[in-house]
């Protein structure tokens, strides 16, 4: 077992009694590694305090990414990670709240929470793992699946144009938005670091391979390394989100505005000026 990673695993994983549930070559495992490395670097460079981490996950393969880590992990219901995370962030404004969620989890069933969390600018850092379909349930169409793609629930081709999560986030005023792709290790790790240091809502969308379903059915390639190559072919670095035949990657916005937790706590302080109420 890689000792760097092992260092960050909770006991049954560190002892090798449990292993990740991902299929061979899945991007989820790679992202897990990137996340650990980002934290490890931050700890060395910035004295980042990882004891204040709360990680909330969606349900989906990608929701399992942080499970082996020895941090506080809250597995939310499918689609509800942002709500749980908002609850955490409001009562612990000084904690670092990270959400791992799949494209189905965040954009399909969880879409409403996404809009409102961004609007409020809750200081949550979202790592969206976009494998362009539902992995966990076996390869169904997602809001990110290219139009006309064949999946298990679109045998005649996907009738829906895909959603550009980054574009949506930008238009709603998200204060940090970036998209990278699993083969770009350095960029992914750097972006995770930026995300963790950002104030306010941040979204990192990470295009990731699902060799078993996306590879076989949507793209038509099943060798994991080849899907990674394919991803490099269809993406191009830019400063504007776009999700068509070419998908743009890069950092799209990075700025600050008052966060929800700041405003909420200022309300508490304001209300208490008029006199405390302790039941």
């Amino acid at each position: 077992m890689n000792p760097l990673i092992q260092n960050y695993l909770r006991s049954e994983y560190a002892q090798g009694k449990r292993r990740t549930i991902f299929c061979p070559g899945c991007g989820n495992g790679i992202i897990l590694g990137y996340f650990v490395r980002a934290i490890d670097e931050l700890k060395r460079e910035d004295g980042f305090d990882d004891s204040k981490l709360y990680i909330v996950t969606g349900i989906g393969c990608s929701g399992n990414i942080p499970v082996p880590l020895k941090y506080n992990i809250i597995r939310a219901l499918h689609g509800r990670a942002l709500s749980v995370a908002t609850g955490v962030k409001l009562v612990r404004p000084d904690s670092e709240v990270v959400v791992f969620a799949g494209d189905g989890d965040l954009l399909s069933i969880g879409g409403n929470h996404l809009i409102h969390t961004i609007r409020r600018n809750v200081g949550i850092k979202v790592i969206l793992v976009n494998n362009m379909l539902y992995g966990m349930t076996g390869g169904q169409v997602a809001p990110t699946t290219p139009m006309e793609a064949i999946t298990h629930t679109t045998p005649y081709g996907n009738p829906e144009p895909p959603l550009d999560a980054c574009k949506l986030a930008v238009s709603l005023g998200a204060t940090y938005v970036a998209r990278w792709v699993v083969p770009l290790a350095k960029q992914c790790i750097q972006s995770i670091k930026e995300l963790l240091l950002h104030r306010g809502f941040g979204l990192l969308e990470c295009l990731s391979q699902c060799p078993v379903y996306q590879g076989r059915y949507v793209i038509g390639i099943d060798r994991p390394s080849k899907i990674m190559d394919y991803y490099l072919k269809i993406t191009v670095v830019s400063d504007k989100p776009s999700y068509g035949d070419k998908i743009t990657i890069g950092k799209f916005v990075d700025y600050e505005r008052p966060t929800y937790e700041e405003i909420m706590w200022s309300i508490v302080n304001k209300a208490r000026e008029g006199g405390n109420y302790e039941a």
Partner: protein
Amino acid sequence: MRLEVRFAGFGGQGVITAGRLLALIIMEADPSLYVVYSPSYGFQTRGGDTLSDVIISHEEIDYPKVRRIDLAVMLTQQAYNKYCGLVKDDGLIVIDEHVNKDKGTCGNKRHYKLGIVASARQIGSDAYASTIMLGASINYLGNTEPLKGRLMLEHARQVVIRYFKETLLGRKVGIEDLINKNIKALEIGYEMMKIK
């Protein structure tokens, strides 16, 4: 009469397909029989162990899961260790060459060792283990009391051809080759069992 068959191995070895084909072949061989087929389900099929069960009966099948197995074909040590205990005392355990026979609980049951995985690789892919297992099973089951004289290799051939034609529909190349190789695998499996 109730016959219980289990195929077990790693994902990718065609354990699931073997079961489904066996069920279809039984239906073809004797339409009056009841058949239940139940492959393993869920995340475990993606990595690690996989199994599929077929139950054959001449009356309606109540409990649909295996309890006392008549024939178990097991391609991995893990599968063998886990399931050999479920095989009836007068049942048959078929294991791949590389699998070690249990010294303890299962040691006194009937074991056949067949070179299933190796043959499959010779044909071209681990996946042919599927039709090899199937061939071997057809041979064995065709000689058990209830199916004797009714379950023939020919049934298997027809069903296998039909099955691959249907499931590969739309695939552009290599269908012929695939079918031929599967038929060959079927026959190899059938022969393997004969030798025993």
